[in-house]
């Protein structure tokens, strides 16, 4: 009797999750499928599977890659993503360590400021922020990195401090007795222990920064295009015509690196999220 109810329950959850994954995967399926169709057949029949008439092989991909500026945009995005993620992981982990280990009212206030920054929607600050950033000369490929550090800091500090709170302090004290100053203790002992959380923070931020459109569009505009901006701009022809085939193909190419990165790191992401959440 018990087995039967749990079987029904399992079936219910299974179908619900199946439906959910279908909903999530369907847009990706559409993009991948349409990237192999000729551009004229995409808008009219977006849901039709490519057949002998509409299938164009890798033509869209070749056209997309050949189109001006895509490769440079890819490099730019790579520099911005790697730079920002590295900055976020290093600086927010250090900040979180300090906030957790050195108890003071000021640190508590700083911690809540970080948390608060997660709640403020980007759209609320984007225009004033853009104006400030341009005044500060942050509207360049390297200049945008500190801006991403600012936007990524809230969640990252939160996750790191959750994990650090669960770390026994004695390990750091042992390191201090073993001859480490604070900097060495952090990099030789604390940071390696933070690795699962660091990877989680890295992947979450990398996904967002790699795919981000609005911030680079506002700060870098159409001169220093990142990948997402470039795809949008380059595939838009004259008089509002859009090369949907190239568009789809470039989208597929754009998500591949981040998916690979995710797959490599995914065994850590789950561990990291749990460590921070449960013990924090």
């Amino acid at each position, binding site marked *: 009797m018990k087995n039967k109810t749990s079987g029904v329950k399992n079936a219910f959850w299974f179908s619900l999750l199946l439906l959910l994954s279908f909903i999530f995967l369907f847009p990706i399926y559409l993009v991948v499928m349409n990237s192999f169709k000729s551009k004229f057949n995409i808008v009219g029949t977006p849901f039709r599977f490519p057949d002998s008439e509409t299938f164009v092989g890798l033509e869209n991909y070749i056209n997309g890659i050949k189109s001006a500026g895509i490769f440079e945009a890819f490099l730019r995005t790579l520099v911005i993503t790697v730079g920002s993620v590295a900055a976020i992981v290093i600086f927010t982990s250090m900040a979180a360590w300090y906030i957790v280990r050195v*108890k003071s009212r000021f640190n508590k206030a700083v911690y809540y400021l970080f948390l608060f920054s997660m709640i403020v929607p980007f759209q609320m600050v984007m225009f004033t922020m853009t104006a400030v950033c341009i005044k500060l000369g942050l509207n360049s490929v390297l200049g945008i990195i500190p801006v991403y550090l600012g936007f990524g800091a809230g969640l990252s500090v939160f996750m790191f401090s959750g994990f650090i709170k669960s770390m*026994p302090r*004695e390990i750091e*004290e042992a390191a*201090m*007795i*073993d001859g*480490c100053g604070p900097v060495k203790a952090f990099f030789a*002992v604390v940071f390696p*222990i933070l690795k699962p959380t660091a990877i989680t923070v890295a992947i979450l931020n990398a996904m967002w920064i790699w795919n981000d459109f609005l911030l680079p569009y506002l700060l870098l505009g159409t001169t220093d295009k990142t990948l997402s901006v470039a795809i949008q701009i380059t595939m838009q022809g004259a008089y509002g015509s859009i090369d949907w085939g190239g568009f789809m193909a470039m989208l597929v190419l754009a998500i591949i690196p981040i998916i690979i990165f995710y797959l490599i790191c995914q065994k850590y992401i789950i561990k990291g999220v749990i460590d921070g959440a449960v013990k924090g």
Partner: protein
Amino acid sequence: MASITMKNIKKTYEDNTTVIENLNLEIHDKEFVILVGPSGCGKSTTLRMIAGLEDITEGELYIGDRLVNGVSPKDRDIAMVFQSYALYPHMSVYKNMAFGLKNRRVPKKEIDKKVKAAAEMLDIESYLHRKPRALSGGQRQRVALGRAMVREPAVFLLDEPLSNLDAKLRTEMRSRISLLHKELQTTFVYVTHDQTEAMTMGDRIVVMKDGVIMQQDTPQMLYNHPQNMFVAGFIGTPPINFIDCVIRRKNDGFHAVFDRFDYLLPKRMYGSLSLYTDKEVVMGIRPDDIHAERYFLGKNGENAIELYVEIAEMTGAEYYLYATAADKKIVAKIPAGESVKSGSYMRLAVDTDKIHIFDKVSEKLICD
């Protein structure tokens, strides 16, 4: 190798709680000193101040002749073993032990020699390439000891190193640490709340309570001549019996009297007792000094009195008797050879030579 001198040490935390008021302690070179006391007595704080992990609010701390108040832990030439082992989880056992030496830029060959020698001494050679998580508690604690050993520090600090181990392992590690002290010939400061550890390991025991040193002496002196009721009650299992009684002066000398008990006290006490005639005091008598009939024979025979034994606990070599006398619980420890039953009457005698008399108000020793 170094002595440690603490002069008028005070420790106040940021929230204004003072855990140590005015601590004066001298630890000699190569001595094995145990800081013992209930939790919250300031023993760990004292150790952490010696290590440099806690600031000293007031007073002076010397290691050797050097004032170390402002010196960082790494420059104090100390090593510490923590209760939680505090091994570096991402490093192998070898790297854990080598870490401190590497930081001090010791040549690789020498590091290797020292780590292997320490590993051999502690029987952990076969685990050198494992990570700490693949080790048992006892093995981890040995690695922690090894990590401290290889540094050859002037002072070894151990903060409840055996508390996380099971009873059998604890006994084994206890003797191992004692041996280690003999071999290394270094100053050891050992913190524990376990009085068995304190009694079995140290050259000298410092008993602390609420940040104050209650007594410091050899284990034997602490046991036989406690200076106050706290120390008397803290040291010894089962704990000492405290019995409220009145001092009476009779023709043959001073007596401690309560209920139907009346004990003639030894002559050496008379000088101190004259001030307490007809006053209430507390008599302390250890369970080992209450004997069953055939063991006291002539000596204390006149003191024998029939007591109701509520529970007789058999521990193997001896019985712990939980008896009642005048609504007071009295614990006695007698050899297992006796035939004792719970819920029966038995004649027991107090060895009056071993009685300790304490002041009821100040709880300090009057005489013993």
